[in-house]
């Protein structure tokens, strides 16, 4: 039990009369790569927003690393070690690639105005260290020669990679990827898959992945949860999921 990193118990989220997510029970063990799939509007992104504190669950409990994270603000959850990327890219588009990554490095620890004004010496030595680490991260994602370009000027695929780099800079234990391959061509998707596997090993990460691209999910995830209308309808290894009649029905419609 101790190796459970994230655990959601009976979580529901109600918007007005709409149940976006109901009776959501799931867990991720340390080091796992878990996929979360489901048709459009099934509540996948809502689940992410619940985990990261953007929404508060109407009922239920979420535990991270053994402690409840319900009621914490998003920045506090980030500081505990959960980072995410977005389905629709949300970079700081007017900042450079390097600055985007550096911001995340800065704030996974506490900071203060007085501290930053008066401890300039420490600030500058820290700044150098951060710059070095940020460049290392950019290198992993093949972005090092674009470090000084504005984030908005990057091609689409590179923006997606930068989002992942930025999330990693917050030094997470758990990384949530919201459709990282959306809009990528098969070649880019393949490279992304390799990159995800690699960073997972390199950083000892646990990853939860939302994805539409079945080949990506089936290819790298060890376990998959399938959501439909806010409820988990199936879970298991890719092989189990592939042959689950409920899943086939949800994706293809009707009887299969």
């Amino acid at each position, binding site marked *: 039990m101790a190796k459970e990193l994230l655990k959601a118990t009976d979580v529901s989220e109600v918007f007005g009369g709409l149940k976006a997510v109901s009776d959501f029970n799931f867990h991720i063990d340390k080091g796992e790569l878990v996929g979360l799939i489901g048709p459009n509007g099934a509540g996948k992104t809502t689940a992410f927003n619940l985990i*990261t504190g*953007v929404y508060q669950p109407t009922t239920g409990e979420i535990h991270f690393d053994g402690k409840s994270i319900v009621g914490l*603000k*998003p*920045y*506090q959850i*980030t*500081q505990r070690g959960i*980072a*995410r990327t*977005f389905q629709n890219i*949300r*970079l*700081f*588009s*007017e*900042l450079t690639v390097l600055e985007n990554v*550096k*911001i*995340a490095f*800065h*704030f*996974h*620890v506490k*900071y*203060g*105005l007085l*501290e*930053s*004004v008066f401890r300039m010496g420490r*600030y500058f030595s820290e700044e150098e260290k951060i710059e070095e680490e940020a460049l290392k991260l950019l290198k992993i994602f093949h972005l090092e020669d674009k470090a000084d370009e504005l984030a908005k000027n990057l091609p689409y695929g590179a923006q997606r990679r930068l989002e992942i780099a*930025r999330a990693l800079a*917050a030094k997470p234990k758990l990384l949530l990827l919201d459709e990282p391959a959306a809009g990528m061509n098969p070649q880019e998707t393949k490279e992304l898959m390799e990159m995800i596997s690699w960073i997972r090993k390199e950083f000892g990460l646990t990853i939860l992945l939302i994805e539409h691209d079945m080949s990506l999910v089936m290819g790298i995830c060890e376990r998959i949860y399938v959501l439909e209308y806010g409820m988990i309808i199936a879970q298991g290894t890719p092989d189990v999921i592939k042959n689950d009649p409920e899943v086939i029905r949800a994706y293809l419609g009707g009887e299969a």
Partner: protein
Amino acid sequence: MEVTHQVLQQLVNGISLGSIYALIALGYTMIYGIIKLINFAHGDIYMVGAYIGFFAITQAHLSIVPALIISFVVTGILGMVVEKLAYKPLRHAPRISVLITAIGVSFFLEYTSMYFVSPTPRTFPAIFGDVAIEIGGIVINGQQMLILGITTILMIVLTYIVHRTKTGKAMRAASFDTETAQLMGIDSDRIISITFGIGSALAAVAGVLVGVYYNSIDPLMGIMPGLKAFVAAVLGGIGILPGAVVGGLILGIVEAFVSGFVSSTFRDAAAFAILILVLLFKPTGLFGKNTKEKV
């Protein structure tokens, strides 16, 4: 020669006045940058700052620099309290609700002050006697030197904070995207509070400096400079810090020239004519970029 001399003299006057607009406009633009709110109460914060400075000098018998510091700190805290009580509960409300609340806060500050300090204008004590320097026939008096000195220092400090500290970095990140900033570990609520604090403190300094410059303060003194600083912020491109400074200076200079060469009656008309022209021809302001709304 006479005309050149006059032009230069008005330029000095304009830059002094413009620096004050710039200080107020900085607060406007910082607050807009971070929560997209036109804080109509900002001019009244400036008025409160002027009164705090006034009482520090007349009641506590402090000299100008300690009075400025006290006004800076107290008004900064006031700004944070206003944000906490009036705007924070409306964080997820439609923008128009917050805007209307800002107008409410503005009236509240104006008429509460009137209750406590009476509507009668007060005479700000003279800080400088007849100190003035003359360079080639152009007179820069003590008040103007004080204004230029203080605003320059504050702008340098502000630039340092925004570009060289973690808090500044957090402010810039939050102004791009408050929600994403939170997911980078930035406490956006705290950053918004600090922004209100700094913006209000700058306005307070402007208030005290105006008291020193014009020798007179009253509870409704914030309305006109508040509107003008808004014009300055829009002229420079709202949300952009250097824009606020340049906008403030241009506005001050234009006003000085209009008063000096046309008639001081048209001074305010000139300021608002600028607003109309900017909105017609370059709504994003001098430094603003065209942003297309993405769907």
